[in-house]
């Protein structure tokens, strides 16, 4: 049987081909190796970055808003923790599916969903979008359990602004609300869920300090958006604690004393202008703005004739009435048209041209000096003084005392008020008749003051210093300029003139014939000085002239406002108070008792110059609800 031992014939040919094939294979492996070199070595940087972007996801977290406390560390605006669900779209393969799954657990209305989609459209990817705020515990638990179906959904502890004093301090502390779309687009940090903007009060005025700096969380996520681990966490910088000069006890008393009346009460530290209490009645619930004010509540506020949203202490404009008399007197004393010893006669009325100006109740006070005129609040005396000194000098003095001028108040929307001058009238085409100057003498006519300006005026008269009212005492623990009485300049008023005025104001409260004798302090050795005022709210109609202008039978809105300004202790002024009771009739009856109560509290508790240093208990106001 023929066997061929070796088929050598085909072998060299095969070896040649095998070598060619081997070379081709080597070539292809070489190409693969080259490609590998390009990917792994040459382009390493590019892909390393991509890998990082793949796995590391960063999101900003809202900083804790700074607390607002009163001078003794009592929390006026705090943060209460609650649960909220956020969404990082970059971590979710499919947004719609996630939203569908989410709404099975926590129903989302069509509006909310539209809002979420809108937010997703215009936020940078490191800013999460709020899915639902204020989660109930079962909702939070349901989300946590279903995490695998909810890639990109984060349950986070957020904080809600809470105001332990509610309406009592709403105007001073103010409130926060969510930034609107425009604000969020200008400053992306404000787009962060949980960020709030102060809208009024100290929340608005100190917003920059309270806001803090956002932090970030870097998490490593897998392809499903599930967080594998937290890489870095920077809590950001919490907002600073703002310590107001307010004494919450005095504040509560002020609100309580105003009762059901519309009005305002301000207590200042007369030595440095710190606002110890500032009440505006009626008020509102400031916590409603964080979640959104219900329409019916809002409409109620808008329709309320007592304007609860307005801070009447800083922007309510009132005729000062007789409380303006010290200003008129100081202007005349300074001008020399009046001396402390000048005697003027009151016959119960004063006639200028064909117009007769009456004294209160048409009473004739006889020949009296300045202090007596203040004590009994003689109108005729001041008609003559005003006419003698002229409207411009009155305005000049009023502005020096803080009326009709910008006080530099550290609260928003403060009104400077108005004191007319000849130039002011000319600009507006008003013919300024001598009669206009006459009524300036008793704080009627064009003059408009705010209660804070009233308080400033009486504080300046009391201290002789040009103290400016301010509500912020410390920011982040640092005492603010103005807290020290030495920060203020003396007034450009002769001390003897001030002494005469103080003497007159002392007699108002502390002599039986004074208009506010009933409201003198009942503290041994401490006397209050002050001035009552009862100011018409509009020119009396013929029907009203038939009655007394402060008759209680008038309709509420037609009744005059009751005012009182005062300071104490008389011999070493420390506190200044201004009260206005809208349509409260007699200032002596409506406003002075409030002032007396506040002053009594101030003297007895003596908050001026004292506070509680930072660092003691300043935690949040509550646990997650």
């Amino acid at each position, binding site marked *: *049987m*023929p*066997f*061929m*031992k*070796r*088929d050598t*014939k*085909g*072998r060299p*040919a*095969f*070896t040649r*081909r*095998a070598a060619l*094939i*081997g070379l081709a*294979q*080597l070539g*292809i*492996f070489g190409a*693969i*190796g080259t*490609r*590998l*070199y390009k*990917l*792994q*070595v040459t*382009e*390493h940087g*590019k*892909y*390393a970055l*991509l*890998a*990082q972007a*793949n*796995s590391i996801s960063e999101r900003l977290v809202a900083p804790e808003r700074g607390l607002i406390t009163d001078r003794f560390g009592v929390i006026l605006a705090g943060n209460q923790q609650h649960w909220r669900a956020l969404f990082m779209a970059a971590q979710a*393969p499919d947004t719609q599916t996630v939203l569908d799954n989410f709404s099975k657990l926590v129903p989302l209305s069509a509006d909310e969903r539209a809002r979420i989609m809108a937010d997703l459209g215009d936020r940078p990817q490191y800013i999460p979008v709020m899915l639902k705020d204020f989660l109930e515990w079962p909702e939070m638990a349901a989300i946590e359990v279903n995490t695998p179906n909810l890639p990109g959904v984060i349950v986070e502890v957020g904080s809600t602004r809470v105001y332990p004093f509610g309406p009592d301090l709403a105007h001073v502390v103010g409130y926060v609300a969510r930034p609107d779309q425009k604000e969020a687009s200008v400053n992306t940090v404000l787009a962060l869920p949980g960020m709030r903007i102060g809208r009024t009060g100290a929340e608005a005025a100190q917003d920059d300090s309270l806001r803090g700096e956002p932090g970030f969380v870097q998490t*490593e*996520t*897998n*392809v*499903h958006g599930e967080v*594998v681990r937290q890489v870095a966490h920077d809590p950001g910088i919490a907002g600073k604690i703002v310590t107001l000069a307010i004494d919450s006890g005095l504040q509560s008393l002020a609100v309580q004393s105003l009762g059901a009346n519309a009005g305002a009460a301000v207590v200042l530290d007369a030595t440095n202008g710190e606002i110890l209490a500032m009440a505006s009645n009626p008020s509102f619930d400031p916590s409603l703005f964080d979640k959104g004010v219900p329409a019916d509540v809002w409409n109620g506020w808008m329709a309320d004739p007592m304007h609860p949203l307005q801070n009447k202490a800083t922007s309510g404009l009132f005729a000062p009435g007789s409380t303006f008399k010290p200003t008129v007197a100081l202007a005349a004393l300074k001008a020399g048209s009046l001396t402390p010893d000048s005697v003027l006669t009151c016959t119960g009325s004063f006639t200028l041209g064909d117009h007769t100006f009456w004294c209160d109740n048409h009473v004739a006070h006889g020949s009296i000096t300045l202090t007596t005129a203040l004590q009994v609040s003689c109108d005729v005396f001041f008609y003559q003084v005003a006419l003698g000194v002229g409207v411009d000098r009155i305005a000049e003095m009023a502005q020096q005392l803080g009326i009709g001028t910008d006080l530099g108040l550290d609260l928003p929307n403060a009104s400077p008020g108005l004191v007319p001058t000849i130039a002011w009238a000319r600009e507006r085409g008003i013919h300024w008749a001598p009669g206009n100057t006459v009524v300036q003498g008793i704080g009627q006519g064009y003059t408009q003051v705010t209660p804070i300006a009233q308080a400033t005026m009486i504080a300046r008269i009391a201290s002789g210093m040009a103290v400016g009212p301010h509500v912020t005492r410390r920011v982040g623990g640092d005492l603010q300029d103005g807290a020290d009485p030495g920060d203020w300049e003396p007034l450009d008023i002769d001390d003897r003139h001030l002494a005469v005025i103080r003497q007159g104001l002392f007699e108002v409260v502390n002599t039986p014939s004074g208009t506010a004798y009933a409201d003198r302090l009942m503290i041994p050795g401490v006397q209050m000085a002050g001035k009552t005022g009862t100011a018409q709210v509009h020119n009396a109609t013929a029907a009203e002239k038939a009655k007394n202008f402060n008759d209680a039978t008038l309709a509420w809105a037609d009744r005059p406002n009751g005012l009182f300004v005062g300071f104490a202790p008389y011999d070493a002024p420390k506190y200044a108070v201004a009260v206005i009771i809208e349509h409260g009739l007699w200032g002596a009856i409506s406003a002075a008792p409030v002032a007396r109560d506040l002053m009594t509290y101030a003297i007895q508790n003596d908050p001026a110059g004292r506070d509680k240093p930072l660092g003691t208990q300043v935690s949040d106001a509550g646990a997650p609800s």
Partner: protein
Amino acid sequence: MGMNNYSLSLHRPFRDRSFGLVRKFLRVNWLFVICVCALAGVGYTALYSAAGGSPQPYANGQIFRFFTALLMMLAIAMVDIRVIAKVSWVTYVIGLVLLVVVMKFGHTGLGAKRWMTIGGVEIQPSELMKLFLVLALASYFHKATFERIGNPFFLLPAVLTILVPVALILKEPNLGTAVITALLGATVMAGAGVRWWKFAIVILVIGVAAPVLYHHLHDYQRERIVTFMNPGSDPLGAGYNIIQSKIALGSGGFGGQGFLHGTQNQLNFLPEKQTDFVFTIIAEEFGFLGSVAVLGLLFSVVLIALYTAVRSEHQFGRLVALGIGMNFFLYCAVNLSMVMGLIPVGGVPLPLISYGGSALTAVMLGFGVLMSVHVHRDAEFAVEEF
């Protein structure tokens, strides 16, 4: 010489050069076995890492399968190559039957019917078919003289032998394996001595026919091709794998991110990375150095197969070794090119390293035959004249 005599000779038990089992065992190319085991070790490491640093669920199962397959390989190495040659057409027919069966009854995976389970082992008949085709073609050309090979009519049955399984695999549908199978057939034919210009003609014909074929492709197959052209167009769709794979490779850098520290791998940015994209794990965690080392190991296997082919003193062994080496090479080249975004994504695993039983079994079966060629490299076949 009568044809009968010679055809009979193939069926006759081999006498002159038969060895004892021990001697056969020693003739196994142990360097090759070491390379194969080293690749299995690489696979274990990668699968351990793919599971986030755990032998479960991939690494342990795979290494068990590997050792089973290794035993099978050594057992096949002991089988006389002439017996294998004798049954080569039988196995070819069995392969075709399996392909038909899998189309009718097989498991559907990713929209294609490719899998079947025999005795608890998952089998992809197309993988087996590649080996059986190589055996059948080798057997066909073993008997052929160079004069016959020059005859186009002699080549026609060989071409049909290739086209029938290729058509069946295309119908599964499995474009990648079909192309690899055709290339494998072509390799054996080239090894047998078919003129190069004949291949050139076939390539030309395919070039012309390709646009027509494109219309008959499945949507997902077309999508793969389109995606390949522009992977960035659909980052979370079909191009996603390619992009994530390239990121994994690229982020590995020269020295790698360290074992178990590849972010792409550990954070599951690549779906099913333990199978087709297993190389990305090595590349990401061991860098360019590790990748090249593995590339070197893979090429060693290819080279040893080529060496086996050249050393074989019979044409059957040469063609079989050439085909088996080429099969392994094509697995590697296609898989690596796919991972690097050089060719469209197809379900081709990286042999010995990827997780999965079917490819491993098929490859080790081939290596068993390869070792049989090596063991029986100087076996004497009866020469037949046609």
